[in-house]
């Protein structure tokens, strides 16, 4: 791969750290409306504090990687047939020989678009897939609106805070229940270390809540952004001056203006806090012996050089560093409650010549997620008192702006659609029984044959959920009994959105 190609390929999830905040640029200036009200959330401290990693696939990935159940119909009606590009896409795969022709896996996944890794994770009950995350409220196909409403789990995209911000606000508003509890090992909420972390720079998942009910969060409870390699730009090199004397002068002068220049003042405080901490995080991230021991037959393993077979994150994979960093942080630091991972818009915005690139990208993503699932399931760790601590509270959610049309357009790509998948991994201690190891939702093709606007939609007897239900579910994991109030908007969505029903039965395998 040419260097530029490699660098650009990173953009699919990671090259452009700041892209998520692109969408603060509203079309026209809008007035405030009433977003969900933090104070109305009924909070009951959970038995176990969850840790959620939210991987957002900017651009909006096609759902076909996990849903070829309608491919025959799609192929017959598409402007450009799929089987002209991928000759075996209509065929079931040979489960005894994965190299044989056939792209449809037993559960209807796209074999060469990550389908094999999905099947593996399903078999180990590390994963569930919801195929019918379908937007019926404010059914937009615009990136900005879709991303913000997903990352904020609210239709008031101008005023409401990101999911991470809302979560922090709920916890802070209910700190009396949490302070000194066993959940916090007897500490105060503000004593938690790096509870909210972005691996995508400034993230709309941590957008400030500008609504009337916003909670004034202390700095410790706001999102911190870290480099995926745990690089340390927070440390300063020395100048010719006496550093301590200069800092002492700063401490005399800066506080008077810190509230006026809040964001930069926060940046300096974070810099100071992170400059020493980051070294330890990097050491842990780089230490292969902190990855779990696995059987020698595991396809995601390698000899660690000391004769022990351990899990390895794949090289030459655009998602490895970011997902590994997020999982390592969650594993090593139980205080980290919500992590956002994402990257440059355009990575999944497959409008043209899409199939080859999509297959490669999805395979890489699902392979890394399979490693991450094993990392969580097989890994071990201790709490701050040195006692063993389970890892079954760590959840990874993967979703995007929207799904895409299923018609292969004149540029051999897919234009913006609606119905999409939610991939959700781990967290068995947090979810109801039977929540993992299944594929939920049935779809059908809809739209005129030979036209571009063809897409999948839930069948009338299928379970479906709004994209904002993903955030609602996260809030519920953390103890919010009525998360609808946090996703509600007085003008556009007064009832809010309920949680995803994780007790719904999965679909049977195709073969």
């Amino acid at each position, binding site marked *: 791969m040419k260097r530029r190609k490699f660098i650009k390929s990173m953009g699919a999830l990671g090259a452009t750290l700041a892209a998520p905040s692109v969408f603060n640029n509203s079309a026209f200036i809008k007035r405030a409306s009433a977003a969900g009200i933090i104070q109305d959330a009924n909070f009951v401290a959970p038995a176990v504090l969850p840790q959620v990693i939210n991987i957002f696939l900017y651009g909006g990935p096609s759902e076909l990687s996990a849903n070829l159940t309608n491919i025959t119909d799609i192929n017959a009606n598409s402007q450009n047939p799929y089987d002209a590009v991928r000759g075996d896409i209509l065929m079931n795969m040979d489960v005894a020989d994965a190299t044989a022709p056939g792209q449809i896996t037993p559960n209807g996944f796209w074999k060469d678009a990550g389908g094999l890794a999905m099947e593996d994770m399903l078999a180990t009950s590390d994963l569930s897939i919801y195929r019918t995350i379908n937007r019926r409220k404010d059914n937009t196909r615009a990136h900005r609106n879709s991303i913000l409403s997903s990352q904020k789990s609210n239709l008031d995209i101008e005023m409401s805070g990101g999911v991470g911000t809302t979560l922090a606000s709920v916890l802070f508003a209910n700190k009396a229940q949490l302070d000194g509890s066993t959940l916090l090992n007897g500490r105060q909420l503000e004593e938690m270390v790096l509870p909210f972390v972005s691996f995508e720079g400034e993230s709309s998942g941590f957008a400030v809540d500008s609504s009337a009910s916003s909670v004034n969060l202390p700095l410790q409870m706001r999102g911190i*952004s870290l480099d995926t390699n745990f690089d340390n730009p927070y440390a300063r090199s020395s100048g010719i001056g006496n550093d301590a004397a200069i800092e002492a002068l700063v401490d005399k002068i800066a506080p008077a203006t810190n509230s006026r220049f809040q964001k930069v003042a926060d940046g300096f405080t974070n810099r100071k806090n992170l400059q020493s901490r980051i070294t330890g995080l990097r050491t842990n991230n780089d230490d292969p012996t902190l990855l779990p021991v696995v059987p020698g037959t595991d396809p995601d393993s390698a000899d660690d050089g000391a004769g022990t077979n351990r899990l390895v994150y794949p090289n030459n994979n655009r998602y490895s560093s970011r997902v590994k960093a997020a999982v390592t942080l969650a594993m090593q630091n139980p205080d980290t409650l919500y992590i956002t991972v994402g990257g440059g818009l355009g990575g999944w915005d497959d409008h*043209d010549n899409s199939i080859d690139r999509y297959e490669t990208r999805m395979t890489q993503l699902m392979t890394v997620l399979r490693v991450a699932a094993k990392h969580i399931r097989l890994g071990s760790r201790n709490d701050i008192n040195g006692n063993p601590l389970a890892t079954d509270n760590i959840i990874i959610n993967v979703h995007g702006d929207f799904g895409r049309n299923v018609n292969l357009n004149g540029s051999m790509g897919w234009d913006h659609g609606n119905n999409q998948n939610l991939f959700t991994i781990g967290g068995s201690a947090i979810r109801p029984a039977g929540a993992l190891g299944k594929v939920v939702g049935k779809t059908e093709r809809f739209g005129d044959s030979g036209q571009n606007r063809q897409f999948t939609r839930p069948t009338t007897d299928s379970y479906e959920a709004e994209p904002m239900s993903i955030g609602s579910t996260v809030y519920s994991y953390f103890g919010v009994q009525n998360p609808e109030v946090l996703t509600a908007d007085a003008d556009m969505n007064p009832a809010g959105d309920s949680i995803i029903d994780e007790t719904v039965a999965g679909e049977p395998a195709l073969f």
Partner: protein
Amino acid sequence: MHNIKPLALILLTSAFLWGCTADTPSGNSSNAVKSYSGELTKSEYDALTNEQKYQVANKLLGTMFKGVPVDEFFDISNGMDNKTLKSGANLLFDTKRALATDLTQANVIENDLIITDPDDDDNNSLFRLNFNDNSDDATWPKQLPLSRIYQYPLSKDTLDNWIAYVLANTILFSPAEEIDSTTVRDVQKVFDKLREDLRANKTVSQIISRHQRTQENWRRFRSPEDNTREMIEIYLGLFDRDADVPRASIACKNLYLTDENAGYELISNGFANTEPQYVLDTFVTTCGDFYDVVANHPLVMPRVTTSIVEYFFFTKTGEERAEIVAGILSDSPTTFQDIFVSILFNKDYLLNNERPKSVEETFYSLSHQMDWRPYRDVLEDMTSDLDELSLKQMGWPIMSLKLGRFTGVPLDSLSFANYHKGVREKLILGSTDSSCNDEDSNRSCRWSTGLGVNPSEADLTVPLADDATDQAKVMRQYEVNRMAKIEERTDRVTGLSLDDYIDYVFMTGLQRNASDIEKTDLITMYTTANYLVDDDGVMVIRDGRHDEMAQIALDYMTRLPEFYYYMKAN
């Protein structure tokens, strides 16, 4: 670039005969100097204190990535307490007139030769742009606009370059270098076409109409449905016209982008649509019809103005921004220059708008205020992916994001840490080597010379060789002019008292005098470091210590949040 040199000598000879230099615009002011609603008036400016006037200058010029040294804005020969206005006396009029004045062709060529050395024959051009790099990784197409904005004197040329740079970084015209179907050549094309359009004073509608049809735009939005949807959203701000998109895409159905192997070319299959489609409340048949409807739609100017206002007023409330947009639109602007100049001179912007500065605004404005001659690779560092000065690492990549830079400077902990580190370590802290060739050895190029505290050791009296190139001659003249100015400044600055010198450095870095606490603590640090000496009961600065003292003071300033803000004048 290579074809400019044969012309250069003739034109430069003429230019020198006319007595102009690279520092001053010398062309005709054929563009009208307009007035705008809500602009800061001369009487309002005159009523400000001297410090406020310098803050206004810093904001006005810094927004355009320019700046004026304290010693040029003020006459400091009688000390900082008794400073009087020099160039600052007519800041508003002089700046507006300059922005309406085209550079002569000779002046453009002269400045281009100062900026770049096309043959890289070690003539020490201001920057080192590798025009021979034709790879997809080339960064010179990003460096060239930045270099021209840096070096060109304040003029319509500078204004047009800056506007094109800002626009190409917004959602309106980003070349989207981050995505697979684009390369840095799309960056080059988008920027150059924008700049040429602006040079020709084309209207907003003309520019949008032209841009929509380009291959660069199709490489960004790559199918008929994607392309038409985004044009409606980006240029009209309509996010709820999903039903129009399939019909608009039929109008563009003959166009497609080839695949990677065929070079992502925009091709028509030759079968243009013939059936009228109802789009945006009118009928269009061809893609050209659709693009014209968008470009001439009544929502274009409100939408474009709103986008630009949000870029510069991102800390204001929606209602406040709406008022500013309404004010601009009340002047019936037709060009991007109308919108940008209206904002630049807007009273609310200059006096009341408090916001974080972008990296370019901080870096460039301070560089100019210190009259810094940068190290030659500074732009390579800024445009790289990984250097400490990389704007990408600061969450602020150049002409890269598919939907443009976000509204508001990224100040998350990672982006700001890189921002602070880059500015502090690459601009403020210096090394002690003696060449200008790279960032590790840039002593003679450090800001201390421009600031007037560290006289240059360069001997500019040594004659050039008989066969010296045009570029070498231009650079020699540039250095001679620069050093003549700086030598006079050095006399004034090194003649300042200790108190006044500290104020001078603070005025340069923060546009204010040092407080008593700051002076006391800094003087303690200077005393401990033995930079001061008692002269009959008066502490004075030891010879040769001004540089270190400024370094410490500026290091301190970079640690203050206010350093990263354009502030309200009051």
